[in-house]
Every structure is written in structure tokens, then in C-alpha cells.
């Protein structure tokens, strides 16, 4: 009855030797939104999260980058694992190309972060594997290119680039779940918040997370996911948070107004 068996067609990856972790909480695209990240962490702990997995983009757009980076460092000290996103990379390298608003926010962020904080971000890995799972900010076929996973074709490219049975990524700020069958047929699905989906052993999966700090799927509530390694079930979760406070801080700091306005629309 679906025990946490490891047998199966997929090869095991031993990059990180995990202990018997049962409930993972996974967060992507936090974007320096303190209110949203705090709400998600509370919600995840309330659901019994035993380990935090962070999929990148801790800064950019939002007005609390110092707090966000400190929180990520603290979580890692307590057993969390984290990969690097494009905004985290852009803090240390002006070579990353971004749109004007994102660029303005990154330049502001750069001036807020201390040297150790910037070094911490720059040294995060682009991807991590744990048992048969891959964690990466976006498309796994070329993690440093930050290509969006927008459809089943993009997802297929990412899935065939890794031996992992399950990949978790973010970057696009809209939840999605893709699968590839043994005959390489793809399925795509928009997850329903709160409904656990079992990631069946017979196929390979790419779970795309919504964004903690800047949701763009029309729902302003912060988005994260829980994964039960025993049941192999993933659940997308929504955490309502004080959007007005996060938006006010963006405006108060002279960041582009659209970055504040879009939070309440979830766009």
C-alpha cells in the first residue's frame, strides 16, 4: 500500500543523503515579501513541516531583502536546503538581463544587503538533488539560463534533462503540475489548492510552485507546497497575508509602484 518504497525504475541520486524526512514544505519566489513569507512559514509549520526547501528568488521586487536573506540563512542553519534564483544571481552580477522594474528593484536591493548576505546568495547552488527529487529554480535542462516552464513542451524538456523522478521548480509564479508517461506523453494540470495529488511511481513529474511573495495566478494569497515523502503526495497551499503592509513598504521605499499594486491583484 504505497509504502515509502524506493524501488522503481528511477535511479537514486545521492547528492544529499536525507534522513527519514516525511513532510517537506517548499517555497519559491519569496521576493523579499516579509509578510507573505512569514505567513507561509507559519502555515507550513502548522501543517507539520519537518524540513524547508527553498527554490530561489529570495530578493527582488519586495522591500524586505535583509530580513528575507537573514531568514533563509537561519532556516539553512536549522536544516533547510536552498537553491539560487535569477534575482539572487542578479544581486551579485549585473550581467543578468531583466526588465526595467525588476532591474530597479535589484539595484535598490544591492544597496541594502551586506557583503556577507550578497556572498551567501552568490554561493547558493543552482540545483540540488535528494533521493529521487530535484530542486531547481526553473527549467532543469539549463538552470543558469532561467528559462520559464510555461507549457507541457517546456516541462518535457526539463524532465528529460534530469534522472530525478520528481522535479520541483518555481520562477513562473503560477502553480502547475506536469507529468511524463513511460511513452513520453505529457500531461499538464493546474493544481487545486488544498487537494493532495499523489505523484505516481510509473511516471515522472515536474511540480511548478506558485510564488510566496508575488503570486501571478490571479489569487493574491501567498503560495507554497507541502510534499509528503511517504505518501508521495504534493499539496499546493495558499496563505493569506497582510498585502497592504507589504505594498506600503514597497511604496515607502520608492520602488516602482506597479510592484506594490500587483500584489493585491495577484497579477
Amino acid at each position, binding site marked *: 500500500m504505497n509504502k515509502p518504497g524506493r*524501488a*522503481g525504475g528511477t535511479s537514486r541520486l545521492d547528492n544529499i543523503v536525507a534522513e527519514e524526512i516525511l513532510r517537506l514544505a517548499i517555497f519559491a519566489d519569496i521576493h523579499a515579501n516579509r509578510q507573505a513569507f512569514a505567513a507561509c512559514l507559519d502555515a507550513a509549520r502548522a501543517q507539520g513541516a519537518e524540513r524547508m526547501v527553498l527554490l530561489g528568488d529570495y530578493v527582488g521586487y519586495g522591500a524586505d531583502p535583509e530580513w528575507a536573506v537573514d531568514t533563509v540563512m537561519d532556516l539553512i542553519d536549522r536544516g533547510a536546503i536552498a537553491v539560487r534564483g535569477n534575482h539572487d544571481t542578479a544581486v551579485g552580477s549585473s550581467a543578468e538581463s531583466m526588465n526595467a522594474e525588476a532591474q530597479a528593484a535589484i539595484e535598490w536591493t544591492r544597496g541594502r544587503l551586506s557583503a556577507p548576505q550578497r556572498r551567501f546568495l552568490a554561493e547558493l547552488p543552482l540545483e540540488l538533488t535528494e533521493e529521487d527529487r530535484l530542486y531547481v529554480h526553473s527549467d532543469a535542462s539549463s538552470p543558469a539560463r532561467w528559462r520559464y516552464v510555461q507549457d507541457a513542451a517546456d516541462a518535457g524538456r526539463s524532465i528529460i534533462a534530469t534522472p530525478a523522478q520528481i522535479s520541483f521548480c518555481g520562477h513562473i509564479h503560477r502553480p502547475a503540475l506536469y507529468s511524463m508517461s513511460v511513452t513520453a*506523453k505529457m500531461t499538464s494540470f493546474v493544481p487545486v489548492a488544498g487537494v493532495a*495529488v499523489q505523484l505516481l511511481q510509473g511516471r515522472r513529474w515536474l511540480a511548478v510552485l506558485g510564488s510566496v511573495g508575488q503570486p501571478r495566478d490571479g489569487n493574491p494569497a501567498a503560495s507554497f507546497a507541502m510534499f509528503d515523502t511517504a505518501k508521495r503526495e504534493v499539496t499546493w497551499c495558499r496563505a493569506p497575508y497582510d498585502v497592504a503592509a507589504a505594498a506600503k513598504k514597497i511604496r515607502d521605499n520608492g520602488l516602482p509602484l506597479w510592484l506594490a499594486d500587483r500584489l493585491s491583484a495577484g497579477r
Partner: protein
Amino acid sequence: MAKPAIEPGAVIDGFAVAERLHVGGMAALWSASYPGIDVPLLMKVPLTSEGEDPAAIVSFEMEQMILPRLSGPHVPLCFGTGDLARQAYVAMERIPGKTLFARLDALPLPYEEVRVLGGKIAAALADLHRQNVIHHDIKPSSIMFRESGEAVLIDFGLSHHDHLPDLLQEEFRVPYGTAPYMAPERLLGVRDDPRSDLFSLGVLLYFFTTGARPFGESEALRVIRQRLWRDPHPPRRLRDDYPPWLQEIVLRCLEIEPAWRYPTATQLAFDLGHPDQVKLTARSERLKRDPLTTVWRRRFNQGLTQPKPKADVAAHLASSPIVAVALDTTQGSEALNAAIRLTAEQVLATLPSARLACLNVLKLGRVTIDRTLDQEGSNKHVDRLVALQHWAQPLRLGENRLTVHVLEAFDPASAILEFAAVNHVDHIVIGARQTSLLGALLGSVSAKVAAEAPCTVTVVRPPRLAARNVPEEAGEKRDAASD
């Protein structure tokens, strides 16, 4: 990935496998048992060895995902699943008896028997749709009955769960399913419309009452596709005595455009449960198929059959409720009934697919059973139906949306509650107790209904006239406000 075949006596995850009951195209069925589970079990094992149909694997995966989430009397209870990576199986309650397929030799069945069967299947579909699942393979061999009478739907390998990934969505270029029962929109790749199941049930009702399948038996895509534009021969053409109400129901299920069918299985079950209340339209009288001009328009304009954006099953069901209004036509005041009508109007305003059932309870006396009551009782019955129609007239509901019912009972509240349960009513609108000595003595019907109903209850009060005496409470408020 060839695995050793299962042998009788094997134990899989604690399930003791006994005898092989059946081998189909997709899976083998074994009887099984498990310590501590005292119902007979069925273990379904997909045929996944090399060279097998990939559909067998995907169907198994769908059933493995969906069946454990289903509950209620209309599905077999699931006790465990095993993954393809180890030993694939689904262990479930074994429903005794045979599927409806066993009745095929006896067709056509009497109309009344099919009406009852159809009502049970529609109720089972309603319960399944409420759990966000569309069956997509409704046919005689997918339907069984419990000894207690409820229809049980089996085989969820082609089903769609609105909250789970649909693994069949891109798997096959041709729609997978049973050709004679397949809804036309399925040929366009639509898998998220619960009304597809109502079409399949319509095929079954047609077949069981006439002995002929409305779209034949062909599995050829060229033939199956014709149902996108070609309607079937009306049943009355095949059987002279075909009841108009039944033809109305069957042809409505078989409408090419899903929006022209019953909006929900619950509404279909309602009509099958009240044949005398079915509103007959031109469908019920039809003796011929649609004229060729209509068929050509459908075929070459395709206006009715364009794929639509993804539907939300739960939202669809919520938009098509059955609302029951309980009215007291004798001693109820005009003001209360007007207030109830206003509330009903507000409830129905945004729901063009909702139906309204107007109820009145003819209270039977426990002691006064005498000879004149029969005669008088039946007169009262008619009077009250007329009164209900009259009350509903200002709502101007379309032909299919209004039914009136006089229930005869000793206890009005129980009668209303029973009607709501049997007919899967979504919302009851009822007047509050009148302030009368009689009401106080008898207890409140609305209070009992509100407390025990299986659905939402709105208790209506007429607007209160301004009272002359200022109550104490209001006086206190005024003091507080001046502080």
C-alpha cells in the same frame, strides 16, 4: 518490466489472493481477503506486461488515483492500491451480483422498470459528480446494484477528476471509451463536462426501452463522429406506445449540445422520479429525426460544438440547484407567502439552470379517518396544486423549471425533510412560524426543517411593521449611543 504472474494463494501487501474471476482487455480480477476486513474483496491487477495496450497502464493509474478518494454507497469502497513500480493493484469491496450487462438479453424492459433503474443510476451519477468526478464510461457493464437497491458505478479507468491531473488528456489521439455510449463532445477532446455522463445514460435508457442502440454499435471513428451532427430516431418511431414523458427525458439526455441536456444528474433523477411532472416539449412528440437542413448546419457550421475553455465541475453543479419552497396555502398569511416568493426570486435570480419545487403538505388527521375524508382529501389535493401554481405564476419560470407537489403526511416537517432527501434538494425556503396559539402548541415546522435538513435552509419572515411600543432593548441602545 515483465513481472511474475500472480498465483492463487499469493499475499500482496497483506491481501491474500484467492481465485481469478475474470480477465478483460485491461486487467484481471481476483477475489481476495485481508485480515480484519470482513467484506469480500476484489483485487484488480492491470495487464502491464510487454506489448500490452498502454491504455491499460494509464487507466490503472487513473483508477489508482481516483477510487481511494471516492466514498458513499454508489462506488465500491477502496481498501488499498499498489504502485506500478512494485505490484500494481487496486483492492476494493466486491459488489455481489452481476452488472446490468446481464440484462441485455431481456431488452426491451418495461418502461416502469427502466424509469426506476434510470433514477437510481442518475442518483449515483449525481453523487459521483458531487465528488468532482466524471465517469466517462457509463454503460451496462459499469453498473451494478447493491442488495439495498442503490446503483454502484464501477471501473474508473477512463474517469476525470476535476481536482487531479487528467492522465488521459494527451495520451491518445482518438477518444478512449465505449463507442455506442460516447457523448459527442468527447470526440472533440472535452473531458471536463459532467453532462457527458448524462448523454451516456440517455443511450442506456434508449437502449433498455427500445432494444436498439440510438447510434448503433460501430466502433469506426467515421461512424461515431456522425453523432456530432446526426440525432437518433425518436424512440416513439420504434415503439408506438412510448410514453411522451420518457421520450422527453431520453431525447433531452441525448441532445448534441451539452447545454441543452439536463444541467445536472440530480435534475434528471428528479424527472425520472416524477414522470407526471415532466414538462413535455416538442421533443416528446417527435416521430422523425431533425431535417437535413438542421443536420447540415450542425455538420458544416460546427457552431454548437466548438470546444470551450475548461469547466469547473463544482461550479457547474452549484449553478444548477434544486430549490424547494414549502408553502402553507391555507392558514399562511398573504404577507408571508409574498415574502417567500421574493426570497425565491432572489435565490433564482442568478441561477438560470435552477429548478423550483413548490411543496405543500396536506396534513392527515391521526384520528379522523372517516369515510368522507377520501372524497374531500382528493379535492383538497387539487385545490392546493392550483394554489401552488398560482403562487408561482409571478416568478415566470420556464417550462422545465417549476414543479408542484402536494405531500400527504401526518407530520409536515418530516414530509418536507423526506422530500428534500429523496430528491437531493439543495436549498429549502420555508416560512417562519406564525405567531399563533396553534403554532405554539404544535411546534415549529420551520425550526425542525432548519435543524434536520440535509441542505441549506432559508427561513423567511415578512417585513415587520413598526411597533408602537419601544422595546426595552432599543431603549438601552439609545442610552448607549448618547454616552
